[in-house]
């Protein structure tokens, strides 16, 4: 038979992949002039925007979710078709968020690459490869594609981190990231193979049936829907693998060093795009495939969430470097995003996942805004410590106010209403789901988190020690990145319903 491919469904990753190839070719054949650097950046930006356009078109089209790469009914054991690539609402929300974040990252890259120390073609090629993976991952509906997509997100990032050649910190960060990531992949592959061994299938929908007790498991005898020990091991290993990607405790130690060593755009990429991909995979595996075994993984996720937010916040308290602080703060934020997953009850778990997604979307906007300003400051100061932000509001009013807004958003206080409502979404799920203790842990963490955000924000408004006489340089690309991220954060503050509409509806299907 001939496999029918729905090219419209796979258009977003396809466009990105083609652009990646194009960028590599252009870099090889265009003369190596400073102007070429800008041109390649714009080509990349255009590719991302076209891809985003396809996502928007698919979302606007509505109707039934498009799916492709299917095993037709009758060929395999179950009577229904099983597809590897599904562009449903869940996919589109994640893809849209990743691509919007990609725009910001590309804009930041333009400023970073203007210095000239980094090979441009390779940079954009690797960046686009990461985006391909991040867009494909939420659409994946079988374990193999999930792992491949996740690797596609991770592998280029090692190279991107190391591209700042002749920088010891950068190389160290790359090696650290590489080792951690490879170990996590190995762990996850092992878990995946155990799950496959039990269920005899890689498709998530079929896994769901097997682990939910609706279909018999060919691998082992499933007594009354109870998972044998080997299955529990498989679930734990898969969760652990994803926990590496989202920097959850106890797999969080790499975050600060890698964020600090990597170029700022890559740190932004890690904290938003890569993290979003990790969460997409985690949600897919836990909710779409293993919801029948919720009793096994809910306690694990709850403890992970509590530990992650606490460790992240406590570690962030003592940081002096802006990027390291953001690294630990993003670990803490991972904990908040994980928390609603821990109350997903089998009957209507969809809304709780919606809270996670809503938090992630809002987090992406506010965190990218903060990173964009950090990028701007990193161009004028060498060390990028918190003290370098003293009096930023007077030197660069727009950037200073933007950073203040994003930090207050991350802390979750008005006027950063987006962050406040994001936390309210999560608290609501926790209280309704009966996880009162997790809600209390998160409440305490919100207060700890406020301390370092408030101290940093206050520093922005403190009078600067000495006026820097350096001429003011402007970075139009970074400026527009700040503008974009903050505009979205403000929009979410005024109308958080937009996020809820996108995420709270039935996530799958």
């Amino acid at each position: 038979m001939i496999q029918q491919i729905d090219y419209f469904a796979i258009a977003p990753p396809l466009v990105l992949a083609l652009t990646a190839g194009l960028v590599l070719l252009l870099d090889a054949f265009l003369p190596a002039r400073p102007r070429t650097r800008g041109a390649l950046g714009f080509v990349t930006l255009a590719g991302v925007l076209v891809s985003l356009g396809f996502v928007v078109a698919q979302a606007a089209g509505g109707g039934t979710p498009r799916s492709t790469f299917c095993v037709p009914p009758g060929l395999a054991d179950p009577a229904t078709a099983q597809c590897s690539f599904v562009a449903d609402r869940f996919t589109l929300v994640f893809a849209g968020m990743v691509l919007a974040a990609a725009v910001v990252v590309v804009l930041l890259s333009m400023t970073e690459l203007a210095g000239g120390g980094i090979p441009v073609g390779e940079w954009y090629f690797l960046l686009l490869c990461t985006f391909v993976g991040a867009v494909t991952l939420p659409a994946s509906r079988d374990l193999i594609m999930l792992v491949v997509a996740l690797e596609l997100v991770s592998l280029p990032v090692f190279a991107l981190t190391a591209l700042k050649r002749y920088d010891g910190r950068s190389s160290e960060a790359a090696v650290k990231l590489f080792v951690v990531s490879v170990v996590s992949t190995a762990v996850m592959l092992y878990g995946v193979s155990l799950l496959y061994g039990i269920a005899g299938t890689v498709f998530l929908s079929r896994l769901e049936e097997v682990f939910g007790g609706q279909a018999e498991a060919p691998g082992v005898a499933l007594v009354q829907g109870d998972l044998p020990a080997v299955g529990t091991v498989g679930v734990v290993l898969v969760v652990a693998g994803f926990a590496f990607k989202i920097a959850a405790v106890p797999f969080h130690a790499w975050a600060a060093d890698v964020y600090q060593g990597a170029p700022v755009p890559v740190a932004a990429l890690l904290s938003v795009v890569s993290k979003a991909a990790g969460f997409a995979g985690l949600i897919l595996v836990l909710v779409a495939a293993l919801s029948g075994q919720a009793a096994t993984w809910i306690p694990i996720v709850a403890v992970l969430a509590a530990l992650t937010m606490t460790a992240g916040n406590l570690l962030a308290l003592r940081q002096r470097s802006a990027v390291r602080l953001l690294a630990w703060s993003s670990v803490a934020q991972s904990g908040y995003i994980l928390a609603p997953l821990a109350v997903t009850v089998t009957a209507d778990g969809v809304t709780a996942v919606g809270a996670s997604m809503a938090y992630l979307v809002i987090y992406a906007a506010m965190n990218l805004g903060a990173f964009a300003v950090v990028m701007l400051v990193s161009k004028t100061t060498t060390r990028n410590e918190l003290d370098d932000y003293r009096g930023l509001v007077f030197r660069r009013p727009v950037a200073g106010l933007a950073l203040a807004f994003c930090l207050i958003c991350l802390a979750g206080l008005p006027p950063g209403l987006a962050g406040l409502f994001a936390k309210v979404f999560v608290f609501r799920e926790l209280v309704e789901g009966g996880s009162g203790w997790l809600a209390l842990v998160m409440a305490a963490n919100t207060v700890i988190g406020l301390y370092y955000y408030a101290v940093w924000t206050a520093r922005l408004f403190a009078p600067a020690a000495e006026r820097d006489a350096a001429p003011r340089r402007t970075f139009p690309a970074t400026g527009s990145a700040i503008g974009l991220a903050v505009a979205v954060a403000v929009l979410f503050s005024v109308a958080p319903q937009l996020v809820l509409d996108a995420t709270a509806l039935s996530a799958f299907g």
Partner: protein
Amino acid sequence: MMGWLPVALLAVPLVGALLLLLAPHALRPRLRAYGLVLSGVTLALAVLMVAVFDYAGAARPQFEVDQPWIAGLGLRFHLGVDGISLPLVALTALLTFLCFVYLCWGRERAGEQLMRARPRALVFTLLVLEVGMIGTFLALDLLLFFVFFEVVLIPMYFLIAIWGGEGRGAASAKFILYTLLGSVVMLLGLLLVWAQTGTLDIEALAAAHGAGMARSVQILAFVAIGVGLAVKTPMWPLHTWLPDAHTEAPTVGSVLLAGVLLKMGTYGFARIAIPILPDGAAAVAPWLGALAVVGIVYGALACLAQRDLKRMIAYSSVGHMGFVLLGFATLTPVGVNGALFANVAHGLITGLLFFLAGAVKDRYHTADMPSLGGGMLATLPRLGSLLTFASIASLGLPGLAGFWGEMLALFGAFQPANVLPRPLFLTYMVIGGLGAVLTAAYFLVMLSRVTHGRPQRPARPAARVLQEVGGPPPAVPDDVAGPPPAVLDDVGRPPGDVRTHELLAWTPLVVLILLFGLWPGLLLSLTTPAVLTLLGVAS
């Protein structure tokens, strides 16, 4: 009808603040007038609201606005005013306006100094603060209330952290962390109420009087919400942020903190905790009453030990808020009425006291009472007499506003609600009465140290240096008859008495303290119907 009024009350300061952000250069030369006019317009709107309020229907919210905002959360933009919130809205608008008067017409000294350091940011901060304060009193939706409750945190943090005194960094951090911890716990309580009843509408929840919630849930929710409100109020033992914040805050910050922000906590008890969770309130009320009387006595004893004038007034707030909480804890119309009255009276009196303390600090460059010496009535007669007036108002002299609220709160404790143990509350009443005596004691001690006695030269640094190097002590004692030796200010002139702009800012407070003291029915007739409805007595 008139639904635009509450929206306008919020929109005027908010739009004003945003304009300040968007068009900084056009407004810079006219900043003083700008802040004054905006807060003046807000006050005018509040006065208009007081004027057109239907006093026959004070029990029901009026001027209601009800628009959906975030459907996914069930959050509605629901505003309204009833007899409980109307005085507080007016008080907020008044105090903010008076702060601007104090800042903007002061051509010299404090106002000037504050306005010189980043005037635009100061006006912006105060306007945003006003939005949050008024919004809290207007909100009729649990989450909307929470949002406005949080809005005040950041502006107040910056008010202390930027324009505060020496230890401002630690004080501001303590303030914001403490209050955020309280409000997050309160959020959990509000969400618990919502999870149980499925609505966020305060009106509907209050009308249900706790129907649909089990007693255990109500107790849990009351404790969570109560902790959040008690931090803000502040209730002993959650008050420790208050003295530091007050001591370090600039004058306008202290005035608004004591005059309005503390009221947000007590208002929450009257608006949310008691009417929505009656069973929880009944179960927790004895504990609330116990902590309240501990607060009264503790506040009074702490005041006796203070040397710093501002810090003493801050601790006196702990005591006064103890009376307010005791009034709430009785769960009777009399007690709650008394609490609400004491609330407003405390806002007026303590607002005035902090203005005066700021003026004293401004003239003597210290608020340390021993350093101030005595005899202010002789050196600065008008300031001294105003300080005396505010102090005796605060200690509860009959005929002034401070008396009625505390008297009614104690009276409520004499005959608490039927579900509450009467002997216990009689004990509270006796202890509270003792606390009132102690309150009188520390204010009188303060007056005897500061306003009475013979004027002495305050211990000035120069004199101290002289003594340290072993110079002979002044042979001629200072307190011989003759013109009082004047304290010199930094320019070398004696500090002047009350100035015009200060008088302008303080007179309305003095008048209102007298008015409510002589005619308490004015305020009580407003709150009584609303209180009866909230407690479910009328129905």
